[in-house]
């Protein structure tokens, strides 16, 4: 059986840009037109490298005295053994060499990208968005709105969702060839439904059990939901899950930190709001009513806080004055 050699020129995402088939070795690479493969890369030498078999009978790339030499994972070498998965950088060109005996990965099941599933996701996304839009419009409708107002709201929701998913699909198309619009739309819908549910859960827990601190810090859980949504968007584009997880988690931590900092600068407190403003029907109430005497006591305790606050403000001002008027 005759053996063929394939030299593949890759782009920076690792996809094959060009594939050259050879039946015999050695194969010469360089900018000169005397080479077997002509590299259109000013960072390569006229006669840059040579593919041949080494003493062990393995494929092997040898530098022919070029200035930039061969780079393997960023390190310069004068020669490199090629096992079929090795990617070598010549100048700025990436190459990979395989022979016809190279064993390829097993076939990937097509079920995850099947047509009907994409349409199902698309349909689910639209259904979720419609339901959410109608519920939100209904809850906020205090002026006996007409049907046309509900439809206008619905259109606004769908348009924004399409715009968001469209941007992700575009990025998806650019970086990995496949738009995946339906999946992005589905991801967005899940995210937005989760955010909305979270709002209601906060309100119910806060109001029912008088857990006002829930609503004081609600922006942080919202950030978590947004970060998870963005992670699922990114995962459709890039498959390096561990890296994406780290990126999304650190972005979430960063945003949370910024919010805490911003709140502190505004009010000297880390909470998002100074009090809980959610009101729900009386049936939701679970916690007991406090007596006026108890409330009076907590107003009394507030005095220490506010006096400390004043001390702090005065101290800050004094420090500011000493720095501005040395």
């Amino acid at each position, binding site marked *: 059986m005759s053996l063929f050699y394939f030299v593949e020129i890759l782009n920076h995402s690792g996809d094959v840009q060009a594939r050259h088939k050879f039946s015999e070795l050695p194969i010469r690479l360089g900018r000169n037109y005397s080479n077997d493969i002509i590299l259109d890369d000013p960072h390569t030498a006229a006669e840059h490298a040579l593919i041949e078999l080494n003493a062990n009978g393995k494929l092997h790339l040898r530098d022919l005295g070029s200035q930039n030499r061969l780079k393997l994972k960023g390190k310069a070498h004068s020669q490199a053994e090629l096992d079929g998965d090795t990617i070598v950088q010549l100048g700025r060109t990436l190459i990979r060499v395989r022979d016809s005996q190279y064993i390829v990965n097993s076939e990937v099941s097509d079920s995850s990208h099947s047509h009907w599933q994409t349409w199902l996701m698309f349909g689910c996304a639209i259904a979720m968005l419609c339901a959410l839009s109608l519920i939100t419009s*209904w*809850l*906020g*409708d*205090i*002026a*006996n709105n007409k049907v046309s107002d509900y439809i206008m709201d619905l259109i606004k929701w769908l348009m924004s969702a399409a715009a968001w998913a469209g941007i992700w699909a575009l990025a998806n198309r650019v970086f990995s060839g496949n738009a995946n619009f339906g999946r992005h739309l589905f991801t967005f819908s899940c995210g937005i439904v989760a955010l909305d549910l979270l709002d209601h859960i906060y*309100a119910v827990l806060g109001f029912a059990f*008088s857990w*006002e601190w829930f609503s004081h810090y609600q922006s942080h859980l919202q950030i978590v939901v947004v970060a998870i949504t963005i992670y699922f968007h990114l995962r459709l584009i890039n498959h390096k899950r561990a890296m994406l997880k780290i990126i999304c988690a650190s972005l979430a931590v960063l945003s949370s930190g910024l919010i805490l900092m911003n709140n502190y600068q*505004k*009010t*000297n*407190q880390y909470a998002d709001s*100074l*009090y*809980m*403003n*959610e*009101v*729900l*029907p*009386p*049936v939701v*109430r679970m*916690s*007991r*009513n*406090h*007596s*006026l005497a*108890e*409330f*009076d006591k*907590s*107003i*009394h*305790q*507030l*005095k220490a*806080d*506010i*006096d400390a*606050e*004043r001390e702090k*403000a*005065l101290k800050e*001002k004094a420090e500011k004055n000493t720095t501005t008027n040395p």
Partner: protein
Amino acid sequence: MTFLRLPLLFACLTFPAFAATSSSSANLPAEQPSPAQVQPSSTAQELYTAAQNDLLQIRVLLKNGHSQSGVGSGFLIGTSNLVITNFHVVSKMALEPETYFGEFKDTHGKSGAIELLAVDVLHDLAVVRINRLGTGFFKLTETPALLNQGEHLYSLGNPLDLGFFISEGTYNGLSHRGFSEQIMFTGPVNPGMSGGPNVKADGQVAGVNVAHRRDGELVSFLVPAIYAQQLFARITPESKPPADFKPIIGEQLLAYQSVMMDTLLATPLTHKNLGPYTVPVRESEQVRCWGSSDTKGEKTYNTDQISCRMESAIYVSDDLQTGNISIHHKFTQTDKLNSLRFALLMGKFFSNRVNNDTKDEDVTTSRCTEEFIGNNNFSSRAVVCVEAYQKFSGLYNFLLFTTSTDEPLMNLQSNLIINGTSYENGKKFISQFLQGLSKSKPTAAIQEAN
């Protein structure tokens, strides 16, 4: 309906200085009686001629750049070197002496430095010392001037920095809207005349120009001369200006709030009905209540509101007016919304009650406490937020707001604002206010009991 008693200085501050200087010189000669006219001189003419040497414009300037930041009027007392003006004219000198200084300008265009000696924040008065003596025209007597309604009075001053004016009007009794009485004067008192004298036809000082009502025509207010006399009497030739006015102002504010709160709490709060709820209000000479109702057909809910407020406040600085309270009750009910939608709407009404966007120079950021409370068959969510005054110790602003949580299709939201009070008094008022909130037993239950 808005009722604002705005200090005169407010408009002065926005008045462009360049327009003022160009027109004042042009206007001054017009005030002099022309020798060509051989008419009998009017009372106003005689008064102005006699008073002009003791009439001053008081200017507050920025130390950095010497540009004027506020103008008012003042007058020399007797043959002393002391000048009476309004506190609000010179408040920047009192609060920020490191940034502002003052000077006077007389009717002949001469100017000189002023030295702030004493302030009376409650009556909006101040005494400054200058390097010139009065001619003795303006005298303060220990007994207040006898005034009859309709009697002619004359206000002098330098309105809008245009030049010295004399304006004629009538006496219309005393106003008790504030906790210190003021003379009601029906005559033009414009921004810039603040601190100027108001005299009777015989030259006796009746009061000091202080404010006018923006929503009325020629409705102006004067500080009765007796308060100027009391402040003036405290000053001896040896009096030195205090190093820091803030503790003095703070003490005056504390004394004022104790009078204010004692008066407001002297009698039990009045009760009014809104739906099944009974709400407390304070109706008195100083606190006026207004009601309104919104039952427009296209809305899904109806509201009835009662709001009470004091029409006066103590001016401390442009950003800080204090020593007042306001009460607001809003009752909402619906027969078109279900309980969830109604509650969410009430949540919207309940939000954004505390301004926490900016850090203030005058007060600290708010600290709040919140709780579900039940009392008198009435249960509600109540929030109390407190701010402390940075410049004056022991003074606080209180904000209480509640929303009822006992009826699915009815809601009562109440709001109480107390500005510039001691902690004890604020707490006491809040406690009385909450005591006053109640709900009647449902009528069905009463019938069953019968």
